[in-house]
């Protein structure tokens, strides 16, 4: 699992780095980077094959999805939305460090903002 993950993440990182160069160079008529494409696609396909088969046979990510299947009822919802500032120019498509909050199974990574003792209850 670890090997497969490292392999795939390495290949994806390489793709992210190399593909824009390839596209740019091909758009301008330069072919020097295009010859590197097999170096990217080959390992990506091999790593992907290993990852898919490993997951299908070993099911390492399968667990009880209690947050989805349990009977959960919510009451007394309160929403606080306080305007803080304008972000006038950024290349990021999402709020900074948004990916840290994408999986509800993963603990929050943000820094406590003045309420560390209060909210850091379970640290």
């Amino acid at each position, binding site marked *: 699992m670890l090997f497969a993950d490292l392999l795939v993440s390495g290949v994806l990182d390489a793709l992210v780095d190399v593909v824009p160069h390839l596209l740019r160079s091909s758009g301008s008529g330069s072919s020097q980077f*295009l010859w590197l494409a097999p170096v990217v696609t080959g390992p990506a396909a091999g790593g992907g094959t290993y990852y898919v088969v490993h997951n299908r046979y070993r099911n390492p990510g399968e667990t009880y999805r209690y947050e989805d299947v349990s009977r959960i009822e919510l009451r007394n919802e*309160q929403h606080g939305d306080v305007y803080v500032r304008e972000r006038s120019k950024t290349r990021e498509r999402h709020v900074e460090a948004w990916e840290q909050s994408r999986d*509800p199974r993963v603990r929050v990574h943000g820094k406590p903002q003045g309420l560390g003792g209060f909210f850091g209850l379970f640290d």
Partner: protein
Amino acid sequence: MTEHQSPDPVPPGGPAGPPPAASQTPGAPVPAPPTPDMPSLGEAAGAGVLRFADTGNLSGIVKCTRCGSSDIGWDIGAQALACRSCRFQWQGTLLESQVDLTSGIASLTGTVVSERAQDIADDASAVVTLKCTACGAEVVINTEESVQARCHWCRNTLSTDTRIRNGAVPDGVVPFRVTREQAMGLISEFVKDRRVFADGRFKREFTAENVMGVYLPYFVFDGSFGAQVQGEGEIQTRTWTETTGDDDHKVTTRYYAADVYEVTRTFDATVDDLFLESSADKADTSDEGRTNNILNALLPFDVKQAVQYSPSYLKGMTSERRDLNVGQLEGAVRDRLLTIARSRADTMVGDYDRGVRWDTEAVDLRGSRWVTVYLPLWIYSWYEKETDTKHYVAVNGQTGAVMGSVPLNRPLLGGTATLVAVLVAALTLVIVWMMLGGR
């Protein structure tokens, strides 16, 4: 430089309106904020004890009401307890009919545990002595191996009663619905679909006949808690592109502008029937050497169908003893409640099209209720010596859901992956060569 501006999105609260302030549903009661002095589950355990009525199955000898035989078992086909002497069949007592385990969760305070979910006595031994009420003989059993017992002299089936404080007896049992033959078929099919890259020795040794019916011990948790998550969210106000460089090396970059908000979501919640492993051996789902995640993935079960415990349900099956107390699951409960809190908070921030990053979180468990149950699983297990891994292929004995870990033939998979890599690289090389006109 060129600039393309997209139409401004509408922020929550209306277009070009003032930024939304902290809002609250008018008239809604204000939930108490999470407090750091949450009582420890271990300390609170025993604060309230649920007691189930003794329906006659709990102690002494379990007998057929028609012929008096103690040779009773669970007939999966008939979904009934059956006397193996006179064929008389009857239904067990539903756990829910004894104590309401569904309603009243929101008003729970402190920790309420069933009599059999109480802490395992420190001096409890796995070896217990039962006195046969029919002939008076004393029968010694090791509850590590079995919680069923038969009098060696008069052959009556004895019940391990409520006084055994070593975790061997649960409150309820979810009886098997899936037959052994059905489970064998499901496991065979699961393995058959994964034969190509399966370990060679596993393929040779696999026989579905080795599947075992196992009752594993779990806590069923109902709880009421308050939750608060806080973070930063953004709403896009515009987007545009800027192009730099000369004609040969143009670089186009997309930029965004956004309003930033401090986002807080506070709510109360109840959770009904959350399962927690109560056997330490099965509770660790992170150890890849044990593939416990496979058994964990077969949860949940419908515990509304659980019946009051009787050793008759265990006949012909194996079972495992509970060895964890409620207090030892404090961390696991908090992890699960925090996950539920994050998961629900994510459904409350749909207006933030650039997402919300949660920075702080808290839950306050106000009340909980715990019962212990045996849950039915059909398990095929296989030990992979080379990697010191115990693989399970298992079937949920109530629903028929299947999950498994099939050991891999790593050299074959590695070789195949390498071959795919080489072929794809070669194919890409040909395509590039053709694209460049064969230069």
